[in-house]
């Protein structure tokens, strides 16, 4: 009988681990976004930098899009500061958009402001 209980618990643990893994996939990394390279240009509305990652809200022909930029060290590394992302500036984002239909969310690999490249993920094609 104790053996049986242990088996049950083990099954439960494995199931929980799978659920946790699929939930994690939903957001971290790139699995939640489409594989296709995506490019979008808009005007910066607001910005919130910081952990766990920064978010820039941009206006694209009257539609609001959210751009996920990096965590603080990644933004710092390329010099992407709050000042660079000031309201009213035009920004072009290269990255991957959310795979969820209708969701206006992009994870940025590289952004272009005033013709200058800020490559957050130098190791990735953008």
């Amino acid at each position, binding site marked *: 009988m104790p053996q049986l*209980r242990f088996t049950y618990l083990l099954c439960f643990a494995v199931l929980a681990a799978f659920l*946790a893994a699929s*939930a994690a996939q*939903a*957001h971290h990394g790139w699995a939640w976004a489409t594989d296709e390279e995506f490019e979008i240009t808009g005007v910066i509305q607001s910005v919130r930098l*910081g*952990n*766990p990652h920064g978010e820039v809200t941009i206006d694209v022909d009257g539609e609001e899009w959210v751009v996920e930029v990096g965590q*603080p*060290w990644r933004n710092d590394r390329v010099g992407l500061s709050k000042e660079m992302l000031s309201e009213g500036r035009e920004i072009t984002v290269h990255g991957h958009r959310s795979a969820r239909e209708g969701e206006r969310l992009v994870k940025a690999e590289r952004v272009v402001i005033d013709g200058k490249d800020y490559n957050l993920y130098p190791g990735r094609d953008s």
Partner: protein
Amino acid sequence: MIEQALVAVEDLAFVSALRNSTFMYPLVNAGHILGVSMLVGGIVPLDLRLLGLWRTYPVMVFVDVLRITSAIGLGLAVVCGALLFATAALGYARSPLFQAKIALVLLGVSNALILGRVLKRQDIPSLPMKARMPLSLRVGAGLSLVVWISVLILGRLLGYF
């Protein structure tokens, strides 16, 4: 009024520093996870013993040890959780998931305090080792399991919605 207070919290110097830190934020995050794991990791075997598993071991061994590790875990989770909350106070406060989670934490803590009193009042240490626990304790233990695991799930969902 509340919004202003929450924004003021976000703007505190040490909160800003944490929000923009390289290592402190993930470390506080790890502290929160350690707290939650100690809490849930203690509560689950304790509740299962109260529900009737492992009756060849004295119930008070579970109670005396796991109550303490769970409480320490809760304390750590609350302190680290408060810091994480502060970095985006307004956003968390507005989130229905967060509100539900905090309500469940309060319910879980109240339930645990009540369970502690029932344990004392029913003189559990003097029961025979294999005795079934009184119904009130079993109900409380079942509620505790559901509540704390729900808190963990809600906390995790917060990162994604």
